[in-house]
């Protein structure tokens, strides 16, 4: 408690020198802080901690809702089953293809759109609002729209020049993945652009002017000034989108339901957990997805952490 009172005194050197009173106040303030935080913490524990814990507990059991009598504790057997199956690994591969491709395209497009939104002189509100429209559309609706657009009997894509009238993209793996990735990109590029726009706003104009005076052209200024200063914003945007993209479900479910080698880990989890009501195995899949997401987050936070530290060091 003394340790707590010391920084308090340091921060507020002008406060009356009643250390005893300050400690009381600090104590009561801290108590108040805990009480104010408590509802949020309890709610978080209830809505995230409990389900995660329960899923982990379920994943250690052989438990199928259809065969309640066969329920038994099997330790990590479900994890062994999942991790030794070729299905899990091919699904991870598919998920990674969708994730990497869609996030990469979104980053490039999102950056371009963010620059346009940043520079827009008139109609700034209208530009920003119109760019955001795809993001405002329900994913399932967007997935259906793209599916129908590419449908060989009712779609319009086949009517375009250079495209065969009978092209059925969902008939093959490559073209199925292409449409899925395009849908994801169309849907979430605005989100990426918004996050990047926030980063752009942080780049001070004076630096650009100074560089201009020194004779740097637009490309040099973008790579030497804008990008390095935006790095934290870019990494946050990448982190959010990668976590999202790794759990892709709606688009794939609507467009192919996992057929033709487009099954992602979330589709696998859905099939086992919801369709086959195999709670044990399905929970193991969910927990593995959760771990994968944590690994991705940890990777980004590490990269993000070092880069911001570097920046602070340089500054």
């Amino acid at each position, binding site marked *: 408690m003394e340790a707590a009172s010391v920084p308090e005194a340091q921060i507020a050197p002008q406060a009356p020198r009643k250390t005893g009173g300050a400690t009381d106040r600090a104590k009561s303030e801290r108590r108040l802080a805990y009480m104010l935080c408590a509802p949020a913490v309890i709610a978080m524990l209830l809505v995230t901690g409990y389900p995660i814990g329960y899923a982990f507990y379920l994943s250690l059991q*052989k438990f199928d809702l259809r065969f309640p009598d066969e329920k038994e504790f099997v330790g990590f057997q479900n994890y062994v089953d999942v991790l030794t199956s070729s299905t899990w690994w091919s699904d991870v591969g598919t998920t990674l293809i969708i994730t990497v491709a869609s996030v990469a395209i979104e980053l490039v497009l999102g950056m371009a759109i963010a620059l346009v939104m940043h520079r827009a002189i008139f109609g700034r509100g209208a530009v920003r609002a119109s760019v955001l429209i795809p993001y405002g559309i329900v994913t399932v609706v967007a997935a259906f729209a793209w599916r129908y657009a590419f449908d060989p*009997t009712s779609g319009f894509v086949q009517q375009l020049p250079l495209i065969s009238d009978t092209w059925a993209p969902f008939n093959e793996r490559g073209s199925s993945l292409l449409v899925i990735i395009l849908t994801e990109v169309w849907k979430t590029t605005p989100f990426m652009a918004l996050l990047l726009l926030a980063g752009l706003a942080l780049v001070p104009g004076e630096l650009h002017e100074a560089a201009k005076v020194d004779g740097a052209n637009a490309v040099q200024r973008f790579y030497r000034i804008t990008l390095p200063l935006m790095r934290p914003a870019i990494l946050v945007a990448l982190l959010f989108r990668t976590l999202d993209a790794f759990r892709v479900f709606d688009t794939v479910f609507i467009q192919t339901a996992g057929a033709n080698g487009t099954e992602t880990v979330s589709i696998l989890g859905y099939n086992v957990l919801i369709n086959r009501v195999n709670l044990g195995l399905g929970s193991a899949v969910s927990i593995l997805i959760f771990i994968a997401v944590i690994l991705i987050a940890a990777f980004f936070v590490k990269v993000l952490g070092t880069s911001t530290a570097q920046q602070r060091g340089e500054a």
Partner: protein
Amino acid sequence: MTRRPSIAVAVAALATLSGCGIGGDEAGGPRTVNWYAFNEPGGAYEQSIADCNEQADGRYRIEYVRLPTDANQQRELVVRRLAAEDDTVDLLNMDVPWTAEFAEAGWIVPWTGERRRTAERGRLEGPLESVTYQGRIWAIPYTSNTQLLWYRKDRVPKPGAGFTWDEMIDRAVSNGTQIEVQARQYEGFTVWINALIAGAGGQLVDARGEDVVDDTARTAAEIVGKLARSSAAPPGMSTNAEDEARLGFESGRSDYQVNYSFIYPSAAEVSEDFQRNIGWARYPRSVEDRESRPPLGGFNLGVGAFSSKKDLAFAAAECLASEDNQLVAAEKGGLAPSSEAVYDRPALKKAFPFADLLRESIDQAGPRPVTPAYTDISQAIQKTFHPPADVDPDTIVDQLRERIDKAAEGGIF
């Protein structure tokens, strides 16, 4: 301080409101029988409910709880309620392959004694087999369904008695036209594969639920692969379900289509001429020297095991599945009857000009595997045969065995 009372009032009001809501929705009344069934678009179910409620004269009142039309979604929704032992699930409209799964899990109760006799009386063989599991009857057959071979009378000759898939594919290829099938990775694909295997004299799993995959799976793979790799494969074949097949046939690209009878009334909406040019024949053979075993669809009515009104539910089911109401389902909903006698009624012949062929096909249909792990096994079959153009007859038997075994023991496949 001034806010506190208002929050308390709001909370109290909310509690009362939600309390009312739950009471109103679920309890209904002591004589209400909740019937969980898909939202039948033709109005047949509604009419049958009204008729039965009138006949019951206050003894019970059937309440229609509407489910989605997609079979997978129907199952998902009722399975969750049953697994949670929901006592408001009184009566279930069950797709034919659900019987073993629901019976084994203890979600439905068997029909015994006089009730069993009512459920069995006058039913066709196929529907009756679909409600039987381990020697007991678990539901009353209600509607039935099967696929016929539909063809263009103006383009191809009437398929003879021994018409095979091979012949059909060859003919479509030489005509430069296509054949409409259901090959999306979904339940309808299992229906096709199962019919091909049954038509070759094989079976996927036996009565104990063990896999008995043999060379008939190879025959099925040869047919599926041959069609998928030929010019008779319609565009997007591996993503087509029943409705895409219907649309493809209506577009005129195909001479043949295997599908359920709903395509016939739909054809009249294209044009009367088009409907006149549609002929029907028995499902094609997998092999030359064996009768085909057409797919079997339809709905059975099961009584929920957790219901507190089982007696009323049994009575309601018997009324809904009566011959008169089967006729209503046929006329308004296009659903084939499960009782033999209904096929002789003039009204049915008018609704289904192909009624005799329908009855024969249902009677000789090849049912889907009867096993509690049906959902798992069906997914395993779909995954193994999909995509149809890549299916390899040389490895299919081993692959299918391995996947079905994994599925049956609750593993990942």
